[in-house]
């Protein structure tokens, strides 16, 4: 098998949490509020529910093929030719999405902290980290991620605790004044973020206990949902829906308000610091999926040599995909959800599952592996 390491259920869960949460916590509060206004928190809940439905779907598919990744079993299900096309599609999806994430990352750092530094510096540095991580395998990434998750989540909670006195519940009123529709609309983009759980299909064969796959996906979505809810509630209750939808990164704006005894002030740069760690995990997981899918698509015996060339490719792609920040945000909030949800995140897995059921491919029950 290509990958030698194994990761535990907890490691996989936390890996998926940071993969989704790292960018979601910065971008989604604003994007959801644009559509849903003060009901953005309902959007977050709906998106979490959607995410759980998606994870039920994709994990059911994965559990039928516990030894294979989506690249491999799409060939089993659809036959060699169509399967390769689907595999190629997933390879492109991982590569493209990774380029988008890296661009988000670079744009955020340039816009918020270092306006004079060229984009390529940040983009290439985060990819260098991802390449380093991937070359040492999945296992170290899983281990490191546990640590980064603790750092990431505890700092987010720390910020929230120190902002409690700024929050005003009145900002949520009136509830559901315009009906449920705006909240549903606001949930679309977050759902596409939750749909990134499809990445689990690339690490599913390397779980120590694949029979507990549902736990990984649903657990990850519940944790992400909780943090997203906190993020939305924090920003909307402090600034009100109008301001939040105008901000690009509302969480950063809220952190600016923290002031502890006139000593700990203006600490929003700390958000950047932990965010770098979070995005590192996200980019690494996506890059791992890209490299792994390429290796499996072409039946290679090792995926590591691909890490650097594909890394260079993704950096170039990340710079030339978009003209500027406006272009990026437009793509993220309008095009990406429809594109990702209809095809790679839900559409194709659903199709594969139906065909697998009809053609009777795959195992019905996951064999219990010995835990060791």
């Amino acid at each position, binding site marked *: 098998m290509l990958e030698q390491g194994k990761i*535990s259920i*907890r*490691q996989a869960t936390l890996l998926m949490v940071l993969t989704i949460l790292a960018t979601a916590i910065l971008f989604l509060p604003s994007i959801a509020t644009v559509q849903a206004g003060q009901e953005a928190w309902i959007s977050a809940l709906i998106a979490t529910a959607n995410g759980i439905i998606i994870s039920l779907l994709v994990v059911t598919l994965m559990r039928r093929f516990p030894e294979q990744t989506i690249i491999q079993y799409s060939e089993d299900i659809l036959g060699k030719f169509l399967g390769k096309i689907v595999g190629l599609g997933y390879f492109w999806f991982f590569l493209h999405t990774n380029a988008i994430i890296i661009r988000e990352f670079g744009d955020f*750092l340039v816009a918020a*902290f*270092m306006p004079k*530094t060229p984009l390529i*510096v*940040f983009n290439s*540095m985060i990819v260098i*980290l991802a390449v*380093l*991580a991937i070359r*040492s*395998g999945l*296992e*170290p*990434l*899983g*281990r*490191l991620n*546990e*640590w980064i998750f603790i750092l990431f989540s505890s700092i987010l909670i720390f910020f929230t605790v120190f902002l409690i006195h700024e929050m005003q519940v009145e900002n949520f009123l009136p509830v559901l004044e315009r009906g449920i529709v705006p909240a549903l609309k606001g949930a679309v983009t977050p759902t596409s973020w939750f749909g990134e759980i499809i990445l689990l299909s690339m690490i599913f064969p390397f779980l120590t206990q694949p029979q507990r796959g549902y736990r990984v996906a649903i657990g990850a979505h519940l944790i992400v949902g909780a943090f997203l809810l906190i993020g939305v509630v924090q920003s909307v209750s402090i600034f009100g829906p109008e301001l939040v939808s105008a901000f690009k990164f509302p969480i950063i704006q809220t952190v600016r308000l923290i002031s502890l005894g*006139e*000593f700990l*002030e*203006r*600490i929003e*740069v700390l958000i*950047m*610091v932990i965010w*770098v*760690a979070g995005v*590192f995990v996200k980019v690494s997981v996506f890059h791992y999926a890209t490299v792994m899918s390429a290796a499996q698509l072409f039946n290679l015996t090792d995926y590591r040599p691909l890490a650097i060339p594909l890394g260079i490719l993704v950096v170039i792609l990340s710079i030339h995909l978009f003209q500027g920040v406006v272009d990026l945000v437009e793509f993220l909030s309008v095009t990406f959800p429809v594109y990702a949800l209809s095809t790679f995140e839900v559409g194709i897995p659903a199709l594969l599952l139906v065909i697998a059921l009809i053609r009777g491919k795959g195992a019905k029950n996951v064999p219990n592996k010995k835990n060791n």
Partner: protein
Amino acid sequence: MWPLLRKIKNTLKLNAEKNTGSKQAGVKDTSEFDELPLTANLSERIAQIRSVMGNSIDLVVREFVIGEESKAKAAVVYLDGLISNATVFDNILTPLMFEAQSIKAGEKFSPPKVFKKLVESRLSAGEIMVKENNSELFTHLVGGDTIIIIDGHLSFIVVCARAWETRAVAEPENESVVRGPREGFVETLKVNLSMVRRRLRTPHLKFETYYIGNTTSTSFVVAYLDNIANPKLVQEVRERLGRIDTDAIISTGYLEDYIEDNSYSPFAQTRATERPDIVTAELLEGKVAIIGDNTPFCIIVPTTFFEQLQGADDYYQRPWFGAVLVRLLRLVAINIALLLPSIYVAITTYHQELLPTSLLISISGSREGVPFPAVVEALIMESTFELLREAGLRLPSPIGTAVSIVGALVLGDAAVRAGIVSPAMVIVVAITAIASFSIPGFSAALALRQLRFPLMFLGATLGLFGIMFGLLVILIHLASLRSFGVPYMAPLAPLMPRDLKDIFGRPPQWAMGKRPRYMRTQDPVRQAENLKPRPPDSGNKKNNK
């Protein structure tokens, strides 16, 4: 293509053979002497020994006759300085020359009988072996054993009467404790083994001997508890030691390079210690200790990053205020030692808004007139400090103090007055130095010292983002590093919540009921449960129920 493959195969085979050879604890590669013609004639044999040893001045050959009437010629051969004169005189020469008179009485002289009799009832030394081939003769001779050769017999007697000048057992200077045993290892293997054995009075404590180094033939002892240590780990240690095929292993420091997973890592994957109590505690956690001859430093494998932050003192002091606070302080110290100069550079260069206003004003005031950017200033001061430290280390201690005076007065005070560096920078460097001194593991402190410099560059070029980048590179490396199969960052990554209590604090002894999980020991339970002391009343009530 094929010849190359065959060659590789052959070398592999050769290595495998060598491995099995050295695993039989004992002789290694002295077989060249086996080609010497075997002879039972005493004078020829002595001539042989003399020619092989090449008139070395420390070779002593004492020829004599066993008893007065038997006329059995014999010789005692040893290397001067490696034997105990008292043992050789009292337990070998005296019995053979005077008390062996009775051998003649009632028995016809024949060399084998003399031989048997001598071994059975005459030689009163403790450890005696009868050997035959020449290679063993030289191995034992250079190892410090005394050899008795009897005319007319191929076999010879080896008497272990080793004794040489050793340093007295003293407190290890690098690992001193406030409360706890004060003895440390010395350069003699047997003394060191006795110190470990005294602390672990169980037959489960196993000492396996290896002779490593084709020329030095240094003895190393692999110590482990066979009812606790994971057999796979012990086997791995054996294999790695057996693989070594080199000229010389002078100290355990040489050995580390051969057995570590990643020699290029700045982090040491073995733990070196001079303290027998640390070795005992580590053996009880299921680790393997490699104790070498001629060095007081014993190495313990596997080790983790956090174990290098634990001092022996932690377990001898009171748990809460003695150890927990100290451990938390050390965690702060490693962060300071690694990051403080680079964070200072990053903040003063890029993120001034992070500082409270009044502090910002005083720092920028002190930096006024300093001609260098913060990073150059930091590099100058840090390298000066490292220079001072090296200089102080090499010089004898009376001059060493002079160096520190020069450092403090000239470089600290005068540089600030001359306006070359800012006082704030001096403070930062001083705190960093103190923090790096407070880390118990010397090799861990060394790793942090090395990594401080690249981090300063990153902080100067990309601010906090650069530092985070550098930290992540270090963390990726640490997360993928293993020491004999144990993840280096265990129990933090992979997360093992049960073992964390011994890292962020030091629970009372009764609360540490299990050995660390990452060691995968055979017997994970250390002690009975419910050992928490209770006042007599509540204890009775519970018993009555």
